[in-house]
């Protein structure tokens, strides 16, 4: 069974004439690390909202087609039910931290689901260790830095043990060092827990080395979904006005003038491997 299924799904927000999502058909499996890429306004956030039923249950609008998450229809299953399978970390971590202390924050989702106290404590211990936030447990949300808030938001979602973890521009407000750290942490989590992670990101250079599949969006359409190598070597990726990494853009140019033949490297290690083997 596919983990995520979009069947010809279209959606238009109430009050808008244009469709935010057009005829989306996607079949996503377990255990993948996926980049969701596209120009601003291409529908990435809307796509994310479909994954746990926020569209169409929370956002008023009109839809066609269907979306199934682990076999559950996102119109029929409640958002609460879907939240046991899909965890979403939204763009601004500040607005997701609702409790008075970090400890209460991490417990919040589990409390809502009626999970037993013993189970809560067990899961909390694990997540807190993983995110390295033990020292923050009794702090209030506004006392935390951007990177700390992001880690707390992540921990509070991980304790719900979702099969799918989705992050909408997680590094937007972080400095480059923190951004790299969090993305690498996510990769480690994906490896360890065998979950599917989908990240919408603008910082290509940091994320491309880590993912194994890419979804491309433009104007509300999914214009490509395939393994990283196939997408990167394709025309669509090249033509999108996204922030291509320098390595990509250099080797892409060289590929056009035929100096370079082969798979365009998406990261420095890949490029180095290729050049090293030539010696």
């Amino acid at each position: 069974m596919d983990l995520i299924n979009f069947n010809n799904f279209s959606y238009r927000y109430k009050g808008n004439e244009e469709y935010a999502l057009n005829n989306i058909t996607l079949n996503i499996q377990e255990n993948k690390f996926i980049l969701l890429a596209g120009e601003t306004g291409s529908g990435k956030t809307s796509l994310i909202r479909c994954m746990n039923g926020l569209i169409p249950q929370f956002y008023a609008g009109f839809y066609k087609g269907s979306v199934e998450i682990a076999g559950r229809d996102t119109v029929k299953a409640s958002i609460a039910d879907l939240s046991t399978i899909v965890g979403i970390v939204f763009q601004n971590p500040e607005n997701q931290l609702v409790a008075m202390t970090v400890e209460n924050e991490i417990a919040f989702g589990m409390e809502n689901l009626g999970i037993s106290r013993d189970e809560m404590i067990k899961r909390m211990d694990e997540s807190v260790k993983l995110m390295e936030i033990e020292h923050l447990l009794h702090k209030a949300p506004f006392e935390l830095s951007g990177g700390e808030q992001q880690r707390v938001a992540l921990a509070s979602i991980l304790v719900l043990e979702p099969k799918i973890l989705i992050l909408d521009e997680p590094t937007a407000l972080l400095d480059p060092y923190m951004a790299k750290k969090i993305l690498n942490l996510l990769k480690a989590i994906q490896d360890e827990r065998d979950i599917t992670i989908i990240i919408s990101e603008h910082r290509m250079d940091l994320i491309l080395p880590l993912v194994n599949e890419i979804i491309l969006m433009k104007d509300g359409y999914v214009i490509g979904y395939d393994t990283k190598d196939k997408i990167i070597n394709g025309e669509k990726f090249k033509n999108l006005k996204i922030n291509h990494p320098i390595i990509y853009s250099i080797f892409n140019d060289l590929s056009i003038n035929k100096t370079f033949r082969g798979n365009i490297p998406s990261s420095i290690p890949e490029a180095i491997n290729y050049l090293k083997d030539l010696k």
Partner: protein
Amino acid sequence: MVGKITEKSPIIFTKDVEYAYSNGTLALKGINLSVFKGELIAIMGKNGAGKTTLIRTFNGLIKPSKGEVLINGKNTRLKSIAELSKNVGIIFQNPMHQLFSNTIEEEIKFSLKNLDLNEEEIQNRTNIILKTFNLDKYRKRSPLNLSGGETKKLAIASIFCRNSDILVFDEPTLGQDSREIAFFTNLVKEELDKGKTIVIVTHNIEFAMENVPRTILMADGRIIADGPTRSVLNKEFLTEKSSLVLPQLYQFNSELLKVGIKCPDDVNSRNKMKSFIENYLKNKINIIPGENY
């Protein structure tokens, strides 16, 4: 202190500037900075290093607890924010923090209010700025009815129309795709051509490498580096201290070195790197004699 303004005097000058929060912690610990007219500089550093505090001293939002900030030779302590903001226009990160008028046109006119212009001049400037930013067609629309990219443009437009000598941007490329960044880069070039001085607070290392000649690194309330972008960002210990990473070009450089491929020292731009790799590949694949590295 009112200095004589010549081309040799900096347009922004700070001397031993310190600033303490109400709880006593120092956000700025002795900042000495000189920026000259027509310069384009980037200020980079960890979140909390003092970058946004520093730029707030330029237009008087923050008055230093110790030391001096001189804008155009005039001490910011002796001027009101309204006065200083005529010379220094700061465009903050979140455009939603300023939009409130009924129409975009009114939004621009609000920005022109304290400049002592007559009706005609106000209307003139409004028309020009709306055209420049491609917002003319939305003139009568509510500012809340724009897309994310357009609200950002409106925020910039509402400062640009005031024609200040110094423009300061706080994280202008956040969350933007390459189209929007290209638009912004072009805007900066045009303003520089007009003789404006531009300061950009940013985390976007690649943008700075490609477009900004001079970079200031801040860490923990102090300036730890101030110089040509390409050499400041080439030093790993500095980038670590300021919570940055090495620009991709320099990372690539150092990785190439590790496998025995040495780039000449002057490869510090994308195009130069491309030429180098091109030649390297031609050498290796087609075995063309000559061209040794």
